[in-house]
C-alpha cells in the first residue's frame, strides 16, 4: 500500500508484537510520531534497533515496549544520559532490557550487509575492544588474499523499518535530504518499511545529497507533518533543543515519566499488561 494511509493503519498492519523494529534517523528526521503510535497500540516484546536510541527509544523503553535493544550510542546528545534506558538496564524497570551493542561503524555496516542480503559485513575496528566478546554479532574473518584478520558484524534485517522523510510524490516514492544517516540501508535491510512524510508533492525538487526510495520497496507511506518533533526535518522544522533539555528532568524520575506518558495518551506496562 504505497499510497498515503493513516499512520494508525500502517502500524497496525505491519508492526507486530515480538517484531524486530528499526526506527532510524541520525539526530535528524527521527520518526517520533510513528514511535508514539507503536506505543499507543500497545506493542510489546519488540527488539528495537537504532544506532542512537535517543529520546525516541528512551520513551519506548520506559513504556515497556522493548525486550531487547540493538544500538551503538545511547545518550541524550549534548545533554547527558538516557535515564529510562539506564533504569531498564541498571534496575530492570519496567523490566529487564537485553542489550546488543555495536560501534557506529559496526551497526552501520550490519545494516549495509542487511540491505545487500549478505549475512555479514567486514570492517576495520572492534579489534581489541570488549565489544568483541559479543560473539553472536561480532566476529572475525581472514582476508583470503593478504591473511589479515578483520572484524565482521552479523547482518541486521529488521522485520520493519520506520523512517520519517520530507516528501512523497503522488506515486508514493519518497525523498529525504540533509543528514540522511543510515535510513537507506535500514529501509532496504528490512522486510517491511513504513515512511512518514511532511507532505506530498507532484514532483520532487532537486536536492544534493537526497535519498530517493522507489515506492516498490516501501510498505506504507503516511502523511504526518511534524512527525519528527522534537527532532527536526530540514527545510520544515528546527530541532526542539528545549525539549531535549527538559526530557532530562522528565525521564530522570519514574513518576514524572509516567505522568508524561499519561498526558500523551501513551499506555505503560501496567496498562497494556506485561504479557500479551
Amino acid at each position, binding site marked *: 500500500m504505497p499510497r498515503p494511509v493513516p499512520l494508525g493503519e500502517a502500524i497496525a498492519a505491519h508492526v507486530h508484537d515480538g517484531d524486530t523494529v528499526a526506527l532510524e534517523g*541520525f*539526530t*535528524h528526521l527521527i520518526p517520533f510520531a510513528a514511535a508514539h503510535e507503536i506505543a499507543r497500540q500497545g506493542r510489546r516484546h519488540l527488539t528495537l534497533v537504532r*544506532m*542512537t536510541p535517543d529520546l525516541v527509544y528512551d520513551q519506548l523503553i520506559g513504556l515497556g515496549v522493548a525486550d531487547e535493544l540493538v*544500538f*551503538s*550510542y*545511547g*545518550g541524550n*546528545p*549534548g545533554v547527558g*544520559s*538516557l535515564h529510562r*534506558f*539506564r533504569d531498564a*538496564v*541498571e534496575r530492570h524497570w519496567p523490566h529487564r532490557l537485553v542489550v546488543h*551493542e*555495536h*560501534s*557506529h*561503524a*559496526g551497526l*552501520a*555496516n550490519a*545494516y*549495509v550487509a542487511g540491505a545487500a542480503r549478505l549475512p555479514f559485513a567486514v*570492517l*576495520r*575496528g*572492534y*579489534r*581489541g*575492544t*570488549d*565489544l568483541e*566478546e559479543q560473539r553472536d554479532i561480532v566476529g572475525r574473518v581472514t582476508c583470503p588474499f593478504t591473511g589479515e584478520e578483520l572484524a565482521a558484524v552479523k547482518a541486521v534485517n529488521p522485520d520493519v523499518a520506520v523512517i520519517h522523510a520530507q516528501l512523497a510524490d503522488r506515486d508514493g516514492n519518497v525523498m529525504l535530504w*540533509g*543528514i*540522511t*544517516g*543510515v535510513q*537507506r*540501508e535500514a529501509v532496504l535491510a528490512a522486510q517491511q518499511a513504513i515512511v512518514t512524510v511532511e507532505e506530498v508533492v507532484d514532483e520532487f525538487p532537486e536536492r544534493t*545529497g537526497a*535519498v530517493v526510495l522507489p515506492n516498490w520497496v516501501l510498505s506504507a507511506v503516511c502523511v504526518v507533518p511534524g512527525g519528527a518533533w522534537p527532532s*527536526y526535518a*530540514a527545510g520544515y522544522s*528546527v*530541532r526542539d*533543543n528545549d525539549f*531535549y533539555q527538559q526530557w532530562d528532568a522528565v525521564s530522570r524520575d519514574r513518576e514524572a515519566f509516567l505522568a508524561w506518558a499519561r498526558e500523551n495518551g501513551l499506555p505503560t506496562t501496567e496498562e497494556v499488561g506485561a504479557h500479551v
Partner: protein
Amino acid sequence: MSDSWESADMMNVAAARELHDGDVCLVGVGPPNLAANLARRTHAPACRLVYESGAIDARPRRLPLSIGDDDLAATATAVVSVPEMFNYWVGAGRIDVGFLGAAQIDRFGNLNTTVIGDHDNPRTRLPGAGGAPEIAASAGRVIVIVKQSPRTFVEQVDFVSSVGYGPTGRERRARGAGPTLVITDHGVLEPDPDTNELTLTRLHPGVTVEQARQATGWALKVADSIKQVDPPTAAELTALRRLRNREPVDA
C-alpha cells in the same frame, strides 16, 4: 571581557591549540565539539571539521548542540551517509585528528564509555561506543579530552570500548598512531616513546604535579622536564565565551 578562567576552559583551549590549519578533524559531542570549533575561530580557520553524522567540511555558524544539527549539513561541502562516513572516511584513515572523551581511561590510553561494573549487570550504564572505536583505531592522531580524577583515571578500565595501546601498552596494531595526547583540566599526558605509558609532560598554569598525581588512580609517571602550558589568551577566552553563548560567527 574578563581574564578569569577555569580549569575546564584551559582544557578546551589546550585541546584547540593542537589542531592545525588543514587538519581533517573528526568532531564528537561535548568538549571535542567546543575545542574544534574554537580552533577554527582562532588560529586554525582552515582546519576541516568532519562530523560522524556525515557532514564533511562543516562550517557551523554557531556551536552545534548535536552532531546532527542542520547547520552542519547546510554549511558542509558534502554530506554523506553514515555507512559511507565510517567506511570511506573514518575507517579509510582520512581523519588526521580524532578527539575522544571517556568515562574511564587507563595508563595505556584504553578508553571506557560503555559500563561501570559488569557489562550484563552494570552498576552504571554509559552511552556506549558510538564512533569512538574506529576513530581510535584509524585517526592519524587521537586526542583524548577528559577531566582528571581518580574515578576517571583508573588502574584498569571496566570495559575496553576503544583501544589505546592495549592492556600492556604493546598490543596496538591499528592504522593510526593512537592517543598521542590526553588533555585534562590539570595538564597534558603523552605516551612514553618506549612503553606507551601515559606520562605527564605539561602542566596547566596554577596546577602542581602533586595535584595531578592526586587526580590519577595509578602511580602517575611524570616527565623529567615538564613544561608549562601558556594560559588562555584574551582572544581564546573571548572566542570560547562566544561559542558557549552560541553567538553566530559573524555577530
